[in-house]
């Protein structure tokens, strides 16, 4: 944290090396958001680079009282939302693009049960696909909430929304995801419950 502030200060004074340190530190943070928002590795790489470029160009506007990570994610989320809206306007479907597998999920070394981990991975992949069906801003709110553990206040700050709007967007997105999940897997609730017998339904 102390290092981060020092790098930000140095970068604001024009030190390119310090900004490179910030890129190294936050590349996964920003790239993951862009990947979850846009759905493909190439677009995510481009959006993440553009996010850092915008941050570099607007570094003088950064308020040191705010978290640098939140500021970066805010730039990235707005950029991805705009990009998705432009994409929608040009009637271009993201489902038509292929995933070339150039992303790497951070492995969970602590997993004791490979089978359970494999099921979880399957569900995560499914979730990644279903995310594409959400409204852009709802998608950003869900990503910030579950991938970054952001509070509703932080999400509101990052997406320029009110806290009550964030709450309602999160609930709407969760309901939409459940609906899509149900359509995607028309299995009986019993089968699902049995499959999940090893897990607690309450979080």
């Amino acid at each position, binding site marked *: 944290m102390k290092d981060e502030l020092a790098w930000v200060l140095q970068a604001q004074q024009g030190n390119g090396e310090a900004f490179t340190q910030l890129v190294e530190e936050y590349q996964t943070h920003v790239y993951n958001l862009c990947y979850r928002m846009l759905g493909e590795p190439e677009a995510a790489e481009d959006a993440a680079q553009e996010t850092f470029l915008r941050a570099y160009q607007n570094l003088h506007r950064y308020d040191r009282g705010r978290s640098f990570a939140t500021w970066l994610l805010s730039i990235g989320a707005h950029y991805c939302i705009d990009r998705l809206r432009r994409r929608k306007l040009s009637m271009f479907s993201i489902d038509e693009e292929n995933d070339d597998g150039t992303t790497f999920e951070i492995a969970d070394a602590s997993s004791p049960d490979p089978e359970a981990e494999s099921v979880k991975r399957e569900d995560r992949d499914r979730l990644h696909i279903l995310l594409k069906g959400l409204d852009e801003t709802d998608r950003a709110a869900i990503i910030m909430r579950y991938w970054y553990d952001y509070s509703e206040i932080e999400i509101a700050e990052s997406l320029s929304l009110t806290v009550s709007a964030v709450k309602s967007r999160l609930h709407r997105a969760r309901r939409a995801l459940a609906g899509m999940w149900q359509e995607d897997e028309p299995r009986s609730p019993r089968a699902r419950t049995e499959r999940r017998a090893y897990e607690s339904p309450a*979080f």
Partner: protein
Amino acid sequence: MNHQPFEDWLLNDKPIQPKQKLELDAHLRICNYCAALAETGRALHSVKKVSPAAGFSARFQQRLVLQQAAERRRRLWGAVLFTFGGLVILLWIAAPYLTSFFASPATRITSLVGWGVFLVTTLRAMFEAGSVVLDVIPSFLPPFAWMVLLSAFAGISLLWSVSIWRFVRFPRGV
């Protein structure tokens, strides 16, 4: 089917009592929607971050260098076009004076007087037209309507100026 209070428990992501958990389990066995809500909740709570391909930082450096070079080129071309355009306009405006510069003193004085007369006549005509408009138009509309119109115009102008100022000063997300 009534999904309450189970839907709220699942959406709020807060711990529940053992008795509530039993009720929820029973509900999940008979409700497809809440079961899907619970499954997506579990999936969302087990998400992981993905990293970019190796060399992201180096690729960013390359892009930054290219962007800065493009910016420099854009600025250079902007300056060249601005200077060239300015020179063309300046020459166009100054051309009559430049030609009169080479003319005899009598021709120069005549063109100067002619230009002065044109300026004075134009200004007088504009003032007269303005006073006629100001005399005639108020009779068409009552003073109250004028107040409303002017206030609306001022409000829209203010809104427009503030929007442009905000857009320029605070780009989205920055």
